[in-house]
Every structure is written in C-alpha cells, then in structure tokens.
C-alpha cells in the first residue's frame, strides 16, 4: 500500500489504522500537540483508531513550531 506522509512516499505491506500509523511515525515521541490530516481533512484524535489508511492517502502530521 503506497501512501504519502508529510510529503514523502512510503510503502506498507499491511493495513493500518491512522492511530497505528501515527504511533509508528512518531517513533516514541509523545503525541501532545500533534494534529493529523488525511486527504486535506483534519481527523480528530479520538477517531484515529477507527480511521483506516488507504492506498494513495496523503497524511499530514503537524505540530506547533516557532512562528511570527
């Protein structure tokens, strides 16, 4: 399954939920302050577990950073 995460293409063998994907990508970092969009739509944290990641999905995993 080919998807884009933060602009970078990745290939996964198995199906995943958004929650599983985000945990893997965060790689031990806490998810405090993290927000996620799938195909240009914000997915609320409480729905990550029920949201399946599909072929060609574009996922954005963002946080608050320095800014003016």
């Amino acid at each position, binding site marked *: 399954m080919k998807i884009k*995460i*933060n*602009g*970078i293409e990745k290939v996964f063998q198995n199906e995943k939920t958004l929650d599983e994907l985000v945990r893997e*990508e*965060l*790689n031990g*970092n806490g998810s*405090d*302050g*993290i*927000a*996620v*969009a799938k195909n*240009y739509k*914000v997915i*609320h*944290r409480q729905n990550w577990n029920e949201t399946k990641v599909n072929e060609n999905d574009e996922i*954005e*995993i*963002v*946080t*608050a*950073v*320095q*800014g*003016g």
Partner: protein
Amino acid sequence: MNKLKIADREFNSRLIIGTSRYPNPQVMIESLEASGAEMITVSIRRFNLNGNGQESILSLIDREKYFILPNTAGCFTAKEAVLTAQLARESLHTNWVKLEVIGDDETLFPDVAELLKAAEQLIKDNFVVLPYCNDDPVTCKKLAGMGCAAVMPLGAPIGSGMGIRNPYNIQIIREMIDIPLIIDAGVGTASDSAFAMELGVDGVLMNTAIAGAKHPVQMARAMKLAIEAGRLAYESGRIPKRLYANASSPIEGMINR
C-alpha cells in the same frame, strides 16, 4: 490604562510577539519575559519525522503564562489557510487564529481575495479570526463587517523594519472600524511602536524587530515601554499641531512693555 479586549479575552499587555528567529531558545524565553506579552504567535508545520520537519515549540512555552495564537503563515490559498487553522485548533485546542493568506513571495503582502474567502469560512466554523491584511481601509471594513475579532493591517512588509509606512491609512482605518486594530508587521524599533499607539491602534504584533535586534531581550523591554508610553500619550489627548508658535509663558506682566 484600559485593558486590550479581543473577543471574550482581556489582556493587560498591548504587545503580541512571535516566537521565531531568535538566536536560541533561551533568548526567546527571556525576550518573551522582558516584553510583558501575554499573547504569542506560533506556526503549524510538519512534525519532525526522521529529521525532515520541525521541532515542537510547546515544551518551551508556559501555557499558564502565555495565550498561544497560531498563525497560518506560508499559506497562499484560502483552502490551505482553512486547513492549517483547523489543524492548529486540533493541535492547540484553541479556536483563535492569526489568519495569513499570502499573495506574493517577495513582499509577503496578503492575497486579499483569498483572505476574505478564508476569513468567511473560518468565522462560519466558529473561529476567532485575527486577519493579517494590507493597510487598506476597504479590506479592513469588509473583514470587520463579516465578523473578524480584530483587524491587523501591516505597518510595512514583514521583517522589513520600516515602521508605519502609511500612518494616514492607519488613521482612516481607526476612524472607520470599531473592533480592535492591531498593527502586525514592519515595526523596526521602539519609536515605531510608540507612534503606532499614538495613532490610536489597540496593539502591536511583532517578531523580527525583537528577535533580530542585536540585543533581543533589551529590545523586548524597549518595545514594552514604548507601547505603554504611546498608549498613555494617546489616552492623554495630545495638543493639536499648529503652523505658528503659541507662547507658553504669560504675556501679562512682561517688563519693558
């Protein structure tokens, strides 16, 4: 001095500052402290996965002390700005947003058409919208009329340090709209801030003027004092400008008369 009221919040400080471009995090923290600011801005960017994004700023900011205003910096369309605002809401649990929709890479001036579109959509989605805009009274009136919580016209291009390039437009905007008016962008030094406040604006938002100064912490304090002085002067009611002299000492009792 009165407090700054925006939407359902009140602030003692009329200085809003950004968190970007400081020499290091410690200087940023000390500058925020010296500025007396109660509201600070942040951006929303891709999280640093595998060294390919940004580090979160949240561990550096005391959220009991500072109210965080996320911006939509880097957005060029209403669609991008609306999504960024929604991501910011999700990330920070706030419905406040500093709305930026940029029309040009060199000047970073707003794309007014896309800005108005984004503002309308976000207001419908229950956001408290503080739009960064041109010093154009017509646009400011439209933004105020549609329900923005403030208008934030630039003094000069972002990071340019040129000060208030068109004080006459700012005065017109002040006369035309009742909602809070915040100068956002272009301030270079303390006198620019004082001048803005003397025009009757409600606050000043800046980042580079402090972060890029030789001594940011000192400049943050200078800006704090300038904004207080400018506001106090405005509330004190200055004398009118005259073409000719108006003697300050009495004429009665002069010798040799």
